[in-house]
């Protein structure tokens, strides 16, 4: 399986959006996901990003990008302004987890969230060996990691239940970006390196 720019979650996300949809990508980096969604799905895209170099790179790519700190919420965005609000590999870097999830589902009809799974067996083995995990999906040393929240698939699903958010779809990927198939959530939690969720508000 070939993946977009080494970001296998991009393909999963692309399969969930439809042409013409309005997509907001939070922590959009240089705008690569939006660029891909515009190319393959003909969406209308906007990104939110905090880093100067990424803002410049996104503008250079012709991507609409708003410089803002996600920790401050999404006050510049109106209710229901987007079909999808994407948070790709960024939730673990946000301190106000519940706020951002609630904000995503305020401004968007659907939230798409991907994050590295701390309970992936290689990560667990690394901890058992006495070292914090460094992997494809957790590529940082503990002392220079932007990640501030470490959690598992099951943790995330428990939070969704607690917040009353509905999980519409779940796609779990291994370190190579290939889909992990298992019946039990516990097994997915053990075998998956990266999880991608599609969430909606309670009806």
């Amino acid at each position, binding site marked *: 399986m070939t993946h977009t720019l080494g970001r296998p979650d991009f393909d999963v996300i692309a399969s969930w959006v439809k042409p013409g949809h*309005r997509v907001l990508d939070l922590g959009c980096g240089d705008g690569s996901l939006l660029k891909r969604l515009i190319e393959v799905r003909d969406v*209308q895209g*906007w990104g939110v990003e905090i880093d*100067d170099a990424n*803002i*410049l790179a*996104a*503008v*250079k790519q*012709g*991507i*609409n*990008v*708003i*410089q*803002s700190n996600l920790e401050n919420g999404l*006050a*510049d*965005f*109106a209710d229901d*302004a987007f079909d999808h609000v994407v948070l790709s590999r960024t939730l673990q870097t946000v301190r106000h987890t519940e706020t951002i999830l609630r904000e995503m589902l305020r401004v968007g009809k659907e939230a798409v969230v991907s994050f590295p799974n701390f309970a992936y067996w290689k990560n667990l083995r690394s901890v058992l060996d006495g070292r914090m995990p460094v992997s494809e999906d957790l590529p940082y040393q503990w002392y220079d990691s932007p990640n501030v929240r470490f959690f598992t698939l099951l943790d995330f699903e428990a939070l969704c239940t607690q917040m009353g958010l509905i999980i519409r779809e779940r796609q779990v990927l291994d370190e190579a970006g290939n889909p992990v198939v298992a019946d039990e959530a516990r097994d997915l939690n053990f075998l998956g390196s990266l999880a991608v969720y599609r969430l909606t508000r309670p009806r």
Partner: protein
Amino acid sequence: MPGIGVVESQRIHFSEPLHLRSGGILPSFDLAVETYGTLNAAKSNAILVCHALSGHHHIAGHYADQPNNIGWWDNIIGPGRPLDTDKFFIVGLNNPGGCHGSTGPSSLNPATGKPWGADFPMVAVVDWVNAQARLADVFGIDQWAAVMGGSLGGMQALRWSITYPERVRNALIIASAPKLSAQNIAFNDVARQAILTDPDFHGGHYYEHGTRPLRGLRLARMLGHITYLSNDQMGEKFGRELRNNAFSFDFDVEFEIESYLRYQGDKFAGYFDANTYLLMTKALDYFDPARLDDGDLVKTMARTHAETNFLVASFTTDWRFSPARSREIVAALLANGRKVSYAEIDLNYGHDSFLMEDAHYHGLVAAFLGNIKL
């Protein structure tokens, strides 16, 4: 990179009247204009650069006989610079009401044969935009590749996108605001009071008295200048430095900041017209395009074209038009699903940051304009 080099200005006469928002009429008017680069055959490469409070048409380069008279935004215009004159045709003008060659209070009123003075009608941002549209017509430019400006210039770019949405492909609104705050208006009024109460003002008809309200204009500029700088920058540049290293216990210039402000005030009063200063500050105070829609900026921004690309930029240390003011514009554009990018640029020069040369800031402008297909 070298700049544009030697430039020339021209004056263009408009014989049809300009009907102003205030109800006033300019029976005819002249615009002082400069252009850089070459207008292409399709006339699709034109960028209008709108000036702020004290600006004019001389934006870049220098005149053959005045090598030190460099345009006010020279650092961003020229071959290989963000407003690349190898690609774009750049247009700058002095707005009506100005004092740099366009028809303004110091021009002769055709009805009296004397300078307009206080009788010059009040001009609004939309009037400037209407005059600029007529200038575009003269060049045969149906649609600007971009309209751009900082501060009051950004308000003109915003106004263009609302009033002539189909004529603006890209709008760059820098260090600007959708309307002034009470604090902004307060500063403007103190500046105006300094001029209006100067004994040499003579109700605005000082030209006939052979005087100019230099003291008032100087104070107005000193006050304005404080609001253009950041506290940090002023501290770094001047601190509490004394000119003579010791207190002299009098009211002469002692602190370096006093020296700097007085110098800036004197310089400005030497070339700027007080009536123009009054008009420009009123145009700032009146600017509020959302009045069209009962104060609802979201509704007003729905008047913009869905295909217009917006770049809104603010500066972290700008307290005159703070980033929050730019974000109001961004939020209203987003609420309409408009194509907008927003950058909050970390520069230490306060409101004046928009005139500074900075790799990130200029890189953004270059990247945004670089996406323009001709």
